[in-house]
């Protein structure tokens, strides 16, 4: 992936209204890999007793990060859409800590891209959640 394509992907994703709303920022992208961070925010709490972030916000982060990984793959023309995404929640994210998602597009065909992703907080040894998904590969006509 060229630096130019990485810049375009970064701008494209950071301009997405919902990603901006969740304060997501890309910290790494290229060659089918992406890393996106989402800082802790009280508005995204799912359990008011503990202050743990809602799983839905983690889903949004995983979906965005997985899509970014597909876009950054050398054999991906550009745009992509999620076909399906499965998320396993291993443990609650620690309140107050930034959640970091890393996604890898590990296989791509003319029509389908396959992705796996992991979400972590400060304790990187114990993932918060993992995801696997398939994405469309839009053909340039």
């Amino acid at each position, binding site marked *: 992936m060229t630096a130019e394509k990485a810049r375009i992907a970064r701008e494209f994703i950071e*301009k*997405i*209204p*919902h*990603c*901006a*709303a*969740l304060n997501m920022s890309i910290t790494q992208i290229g060659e089918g890999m992406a890393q996106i961070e989402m800082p802790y925010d*009280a*508005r*995204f*709490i*799912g*359990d*008011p*007793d503990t202050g743990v*972030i*809602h*799983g*839905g*916000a983690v*889903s*949004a*982060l*995983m*979906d*965005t990060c997985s*899509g970014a990984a597909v876009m950054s793959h050398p054999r991906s023309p550009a745009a992509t*859409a*999620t*076909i*399906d*995404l*499965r*998320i*396993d*929640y291993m443990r609650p994210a620690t309140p107050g800590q930034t959640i970091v998602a890393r996604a890898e597009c590990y296989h791509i065909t003319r029509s389908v891209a396959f992705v796996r992703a992991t979400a972590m907080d400060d304790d990187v040894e114990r993932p918060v959640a993992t995801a696997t998904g398939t994405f469309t590969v839009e053909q340039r006509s």
Partner: protein
Amino acid sequence: MSRAAPDPVQVVKQRRDAALGSLVSGVPYIQYLGIRFDRRGDELTAILAYDDKLIGNPALPAIHGGVTAAFLEITAMMTLNWTWLWPDIESGALDPDALAAGNLPRLPKTIDFTVDYLRSGLPRDAYGRARVTRLGRRYASVQAEAWQDNRDRPIAQATAHFLMPRKEG
């Protein structure tokens, strides 16, 4: 044969709506996304009011897939909470005043969540309903669906598994 007269309709409705209100209003993320619930008897319909911040693809435009996933997860989770707590709400075992004060019972936790995207979400309101297909002592399975203009053309469907809290006491 005699039995106690049923509670007046206003009392029953007030008790149910108060319980639902406490379950929904206590969760910041549900409020942030602008999701509310419509109740008909024990059936819940989730409503996602459209807002510009929900957009994921400004070119189409389309709702962000993460929003659709979160909406379905909230629909599934709330329907499970509602189904699970319903007998205690009806019997009065769950104190409505305690619920309103934010003293919620321990609630199920999501184990995994799978979403299939069927059509792109248009920039307008979306609706969701879920069905608890199994409610066990330790695990529950829930299916959920979201649609917009046409109930027979869902935009996404989901399956989720939940870990049930151990009964207190």
